[in-house]
């Protein structure tokens, strides 16, 4: 046995005496980290959404309080949730986030699909180079890619100067601080997340399917609609999830490209926390976002996984 395995043996024996196997330990390390820093935070979030904001550090009421007779009293306050339901601002923000995310996802699919399909059918080495070209913007800063559109879309921006210069428009178009700009920003920054799963799926499809379809006399369009599209459904679903869910909670894009009337729930949460300094309301907004949007979509994803559709 090599020297390397000896200390391991002693450690294993010591752990064995404690009733722990190496196997348990290997499972425990990532498990405990994720439990503590991923799962437990959601419970803290839920608990604070039930508190009341106060002027103190931390700025929320405790969950338990000693009553006058010394007994523990649980303080749970549903006021935040009542407000979320009653105030149309929040309801509209949820609805408009879902709408903006959905529209952006559809456009990302429409733009991403031809790119993914083209790369999947390209011969090597062109395929690798094109794939690198898709990934390259993804490795540069997300924030700076959103920022790049500010120079394009603003009143004196490149698009307006070009259109004015060509005489196509008489007055500059208002593009910055609109819902359109936000959707454009989401499509642009999330496009690689759409292309990569689509590409991974499309390369797996056996060419024999296309050949068979063509041999049987199907026009390319028919082949695409009846063979390619159905077979690439898992890739379409995966890509749409990767764009849709994060886009719902997007903050940076509406903050930089959106106007004051572009309501998105991620921005509402941010403002509740950083501007209004109401941690309890921000938590309630987050919990409803989780329950309403993220949980059902993740459930759908795991259901598809179990059905083996996402192989």
């Amino acid at each position: 046995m090599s020297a390397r395995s000896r200390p391991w043996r002693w450690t294993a024996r010591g752990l064995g005496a404690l009733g722990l196997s190496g196997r348990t330990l290997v499972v425990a390390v990532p498990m405990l980290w994720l439990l503590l820093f991923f799962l437990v935070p959601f419970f803290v979030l839920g608990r604070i959404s039930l508190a009341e904001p106060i002027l103190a550090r931390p700025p929320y009421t405790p969950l338990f309080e000693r009553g006058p007779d010394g007994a523990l009293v649980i303080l749970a306050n549903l006021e935040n949730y009542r407000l979320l339901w009653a105030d149309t601002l929040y309801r509209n923000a949820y609805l408009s986030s879902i709408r903006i995310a959905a529209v952006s996802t559809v456009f990302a699919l429409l733009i991403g699909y031809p790119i993914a399909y083209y790369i999947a059918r390209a011969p090597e080495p062109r395929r690798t180079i094109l794939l690198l070209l898709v990934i390259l913007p993804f490795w540069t800063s997300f924030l700076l890619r959103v920022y790049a559109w500010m120079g394009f879309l603003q009143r004196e921006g490149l698009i307006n100067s070009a259109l004015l210069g060509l005489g196509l428009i008489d007055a500059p178009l208002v593009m910055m601080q609109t819902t359109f700009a936000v959707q454009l920003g989401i499509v642009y920054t999330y496009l690689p997340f759409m292309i990569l799963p689509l590409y991974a799926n499309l390369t797996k499809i056996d060419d024999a399917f296309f050949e068979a379809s063509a041999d049987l006399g199907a026009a390319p369009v028919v082949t695409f609609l009846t063979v390619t599209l159905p077979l690439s459904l898992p890739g379409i679903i995966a890509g749409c999830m990767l764009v849709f869910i994060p886009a719902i909670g997007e903050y940076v894009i509406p903050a930089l490209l959106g106007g004051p009337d572009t309501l998105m729930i991620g921005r509402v949460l941010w403002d509740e926390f950083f501007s209004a300094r109401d941690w309890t309301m921000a938590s309630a907004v987050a919990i409803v976002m989780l329950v309403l949007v993220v949980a059902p979509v993740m459930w759908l994803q795991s259901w598809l996984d179990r059905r083996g559709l996402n192989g």
Partner: protein
Amino acid sequence: MKRGWILPVLAGLGFVFLYAPIVALVVFSFNESRLVTVWAGFSTRWYVALVNDRQILQAAWVSLQVAVASATLATVLGVLAAFVLARLGRFRGRLLLTGMTAAPLVMPEVITGLSLLLLFVAMEGVLGWPGGRGMTTLIIAHTTFCLAFVAVIAQSRLRDMDDSLEEAARDLGAGPVRVFFDITLPVIAPALVAGWLLAFTLSLDDLVIASFVSGPGASTLPMVVFSKVRLGVSPDVNALATIIIAVVAVSIAIAGVILYRQARRRDQGG
């Protein structure tokens, strides 16, 4: 059969869409004028302004430290999680671990950021740790969300890997730890490098989570850039973007050449 022209044209337009803003960003970083849309001659003044900006430099240093630390931690934990899920078969809590390594991939950043901050504040009330917000909380937060990305990459590599190598080593009498370090790890090494680089980039790039969990004195580069950009277009940010793009492009080109050479050598050898 006639080759279709629709697909190449659509794909080409897609690439123009991907690259036009980046090209414009780079070109206007060399513009003499403060106006980002009027060309007033070539100049490197915004690069000079950038390297003299102490706030930016300090934030870049914070970001770099956090990114190295959290990418390394995330790689170790992510590979462990991937190994457990790909090789250990059934165990209690398997479904939970699967969910917890996949969910951070799509979780909206505002939720991750807020919930982690609340955890840190609550922990401090109970345990007296982590003692304020700053580098430590940043590293923990970034490790947690980068871990998922590393786990996905490592898991797909482990699934593709031929496990007869590991079996052979076991049959020859190697213990599980020896098999892992002598066989599994070297085989999945390229995935580890890719995972580390991805985690490093994600950490360097993150604004939302960092804004929640960071404290005074530990502003990251995206936080400083965001506060500048919020007020409008500013050319020194273009210069910064150009530097980042150049570094990324050169690294990817080098990686591409190395991979290409390796592939060719393997082809010639085989």
